[in-house]
């Protein structure tokens, strides 16, 4: 084990910084009209997001210099805390209810979303466990089952909120990690099939999910109801064309596109910055995956490798889902676009994860 540290991966750092900056600008542009109408302050969301970004960057720099190996000792308490918070948020009075789901714990000065934290906790837990198992991962009962059980509990609690999007991202990330760790493709295939069935059931059992699911296929059937989000999102993207309407020139942000600073910020980005701007963001994410996974491949030990791969894939999977929803390529599942969407807890834990990956990058083998 080399103890001499190298500087962290500069490309990844820069990519993340660029995404973060685009995000801040877009949060301001997208939310400016809504906040003006609602709070009488165009900068209302921007100021909060800026604060969270600075806090997140601080956390990132801290984690960048915090030896990832020391994380192993904290995994137990972290996972327990995560689960406790995930349970607590469901207690009426503790968790704040917005739009019919209970996702946040109001801390007075800020709202905290435990699900965002639990995602990172579980990635660490699974990476730690799988790294220890080594070759035994090929055994279903011993290698896979424990993690699946933990994952199922977490996902179940998140679904209770309910937050299908985050639960899907969580399960997808763990699944990717099992794949990366070398689980047998037969097991993964069976698991994948089971997952599809479960998601299918989750959709079929909740009427609102079912109607949303159908709306994605034919949004124009109910333009004022279930198809509304997708149609307004497509109007925004379509209006953008190649070069976009220009920064700040979105028309769909005038209360037409709901969640335009959170889940649908990518649509406003596409409207204002056009195909060029939107594809550049996709490109930055491709770059992010490339650097993140490169760090995973070149990392010094299986724990680091799986941790970097898990964090990178978690963020990328969420980005992919978000952009698919915005472009009308999959049913509407409310997940924010990492780095870009408004949302403090999400940004904070994403940047903490990046800090961990950057820390791992300091121990990689140069090839």
């Amino acid at each position, binding site marked *: *084990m080399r103890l001499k540290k190298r500087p962290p991966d500069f490309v990844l750092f820069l990519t993340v910084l660029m995404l973060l900056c685009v995000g801040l600008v877009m949060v301001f542009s997208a939310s400016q009209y809504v906040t003006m109408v609602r709070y009488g302050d165009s900068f209302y969301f921007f100021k909060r997001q800026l604060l969270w970004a600075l806090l997140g960057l601080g956390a990132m720099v801290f984690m960048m210099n915090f030896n990832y190996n020391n994380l192993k000792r904290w995994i137990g308490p972290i996972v327990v805390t995560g689960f406790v918070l995930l349970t607590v948020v469901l207690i009426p009075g503790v968790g704040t209810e917005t739009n019919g789901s209970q996702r946040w714990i109001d801390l007075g000065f800020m709202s905290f979303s435990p699900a965002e934290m639990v995602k990172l906790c579980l990635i660490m837990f699974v990476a730690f466990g799988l790294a220890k198992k080594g070759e035994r991962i090929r055994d279903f009962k011993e290698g896979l089952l424990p993690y699946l059980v933990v994952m199922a509990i977490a996902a179940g609690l998140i679904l209770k909120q309910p937050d299908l999007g985050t639960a899907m991202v969580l399960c997808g990330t763990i699944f990717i990690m099992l794949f990366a760790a070398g689980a047998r493709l037969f097991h993964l295939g069976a698991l994948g099939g089971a997952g599809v069935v479960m998601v299918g059931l989750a959709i079929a059992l909740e009427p609102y999910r079912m109607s949303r699911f159908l709306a994605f296929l034919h949004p124009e059937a109910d333009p004022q109801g279930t198809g509304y989000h997708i149609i307004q999102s497509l109007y925004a993207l379509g*209006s953008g064309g190649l070069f976009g309407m220009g920064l700040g020139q979105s028309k769909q942000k005038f209360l037409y596109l709901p969640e335009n600073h959170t889940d649908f910020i990518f649509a406003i980005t596409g409207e204002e910055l056009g195909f060029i701007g939107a594809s550049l963001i996709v490109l930055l994410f*491709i770059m992010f995956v*490339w650097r993140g996974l490169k760090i995973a491949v070149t990392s010094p030990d299986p724990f680091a490798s*799986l941790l970097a791969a898990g964090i990178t894939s978690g963020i*990328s999977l969420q980005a992919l889902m978000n952009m698919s929803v915005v472009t009308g*390529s999959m049913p509407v599942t409310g997940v924010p676009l990492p780095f870009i969407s408004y949302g403090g807890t999400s940004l904070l834990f994403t940047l903490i994860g990046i800090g961990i990956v950057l820390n791992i990058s300091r121990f990689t083998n140069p090839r």
Partner: protein
Amino acid sequence: MKTTNILVRRRITCLFLLAAAFLSLIVVRLAWIQFVRGDELREQGMVNRMRDVPVEAKRGSILDRNGNELVTSISADSVYAIPNHIEKPDQVAAQLAPILLMDEAKVKQIITKKSRFEWLKRKVDFETSEKIKALKIDGIGFAEESKRYYKQETLAPHILGFTGTDNQGLMGMEAAYNKELKGIQGRIVIEHDAAGREIPQALHQYIPATQGNNLVLTLDQTIQHFVERELDKIVASYNPKMAVIIVMDPKTGEVLAMGNRPTFSPTKWREVPQSVWDRNPAVWYNYEPGSTFKIITAASALEENAVKPNDRFYDPGYYQIADRKIRCWKDGGHGSQSFAEVVENSCNPGFIQTGLNLGKEKFYKYIRAFGFGQTTGIGLPGEARGIMIPEKDATNLNIGTMSIGQSIAVTPIQLITAIGAVANGGNLMKPQLVKRVEDYKGNVVREFKPEQVRKVISNETTTTTNQLLENVVFKGTGRNAYVDGYRVAGKTGTAQVVAERGGYASGKYVASFAGFAPVNDPKISVLIMIAEPQGGNYYGGQVAAPVFSSLALDVLRYLGVPEQKNLPKPTKINPWDVEEERIEVAVPNVVNLPLEEAQKLLREAGLAFESKGQGKMVYGQIPESGALVLSGTTVILDLSSGTSQTKQGEQVSVPNLKGKTIREAGNLLESLGLKLEPSGSGLAETQNPAEGAKLTRGSAVKVEFKPPSSDQKT
């Protein structure tokens, strides 16, 4: 510690490729949305953000045949509210309510609605809108709308019709030609946010409205004035239930004027009963034409050679078909006369004979060919078809009565159109009200040319018929229609009003005159129909013919038709020497029949009825069965058992009959169960017993009739 194994590295590489592939697909998807569907989505998004404020098109005008505006549109402000923009609804409501003359709570309710646009009040007057404009309230706006303006409010409202609040045509021409008149609505389009506020740097678009087309009618404003004037005079003199005058150009079928009473003002139509504005009697009212229909009988019979002007007829004073004796209006009959004289005298038996000579099949053929039983296609809403006994059910009695214009109901427009065909040489023209449709610049959009429906009778026949009809005015029953300086042809008519339950309504008449002038080159044909005139006079020759005389003179002079000098003048007409259609029927026996059956029998016999007492069986009837009475007489049905015998011997007091005609006196006495024993002719002079005397029912009253002294004028 061992480094990451090969499998893990391969799997992670695989992951990267997958992620890169999926993310690339997003780029492809973006390209599809932003390039391929870009324009379409941008357009849809824009439409979605645009809110329309409609701009009403100026409704086209309605002009008379000479281009005089009858109805036009003027602009008026309408006040609307954008509830989202109103900050202090209470204060605004308090300010606006008194100016708009609206309830404050109502104003507040409107301006606090969850809506983007609400009308507060439509088409307010100039002062009101100026006052509100001066207040400069946010969220209160004005839209310029148009309002119908009638140059002469009382002119032809049934034809012009009227519009509703949204300027939609509701009746008359406004409804029939609504599509042409309304134009195409324009729009002001402004980009809004989803809550309805105008957004910064919003797109604005103004799509101007296209003004509606103008309608040029066949009406002549001046002739219409004459008609309205004559109608006013009729109302003043006779206060009839209904009156219709139609003036038509017989050669083209163009309606030059058409007026009705009762009438209304198009701006205040809500203030009169619906029955006044929702139908145009000239095209809707089915009535028995009476003797005016004899024109059709004569023309058809002459065309088929069923009769010649010199054929001899003998009128003993009645014509009997089956159990009915149809009386000539002249007591004792006209004796021996030629067909020409039959027409002049409007002799019922002569016409019945003519109709029967013509025969059912041919008579029906001509009735249909003249357009009866079907709508004329004049293009006004609510046109009726008239009522005809189906040909297969028609009996000889029906043919006989139809020959004198009974047992058939026609509309005024049908009759004047048919008479136009007699006047113009035999061509049935489609009646027309619209000459053309023009756009607002005056370019012709659609033109309606005179349309011949069919050739009904030959020129020769019409020449003969017209000669006969001219004599009606010159020396027959229509002498009151004579117009000094013009050759006039026409026919009077007096018919009983068909009761709602069948039979005839006793004492209710339709007086009419149909005629045309000048005979040698007809410029106008005119129908005057007065339903249920009040005040004693009800004969077509007395009531309607003088209207023709006065109207035709003004119209012919206005049209510049040259007067003919040295025309012979008709001899003076005696006021009582006017026709009166009478049908006598034998009262059927209805005693001991159920009420419904009795009513049915009486209805079929052309009698009215009235029930006395409670019950379902008829125990007595007055007059008794077998009595010959005028059709339309009321038969009193006694429904209380056990009293019927005493009823017969009941005492009644004799009314005052002085000044009544034979018919009036007879009707009055019959209704009391008394009999008339008349002597002489003219008006009742003396009676025996005198007024107030008690008589048992069934007794006779002797009345002497005398022509009134010559200083009495009517």
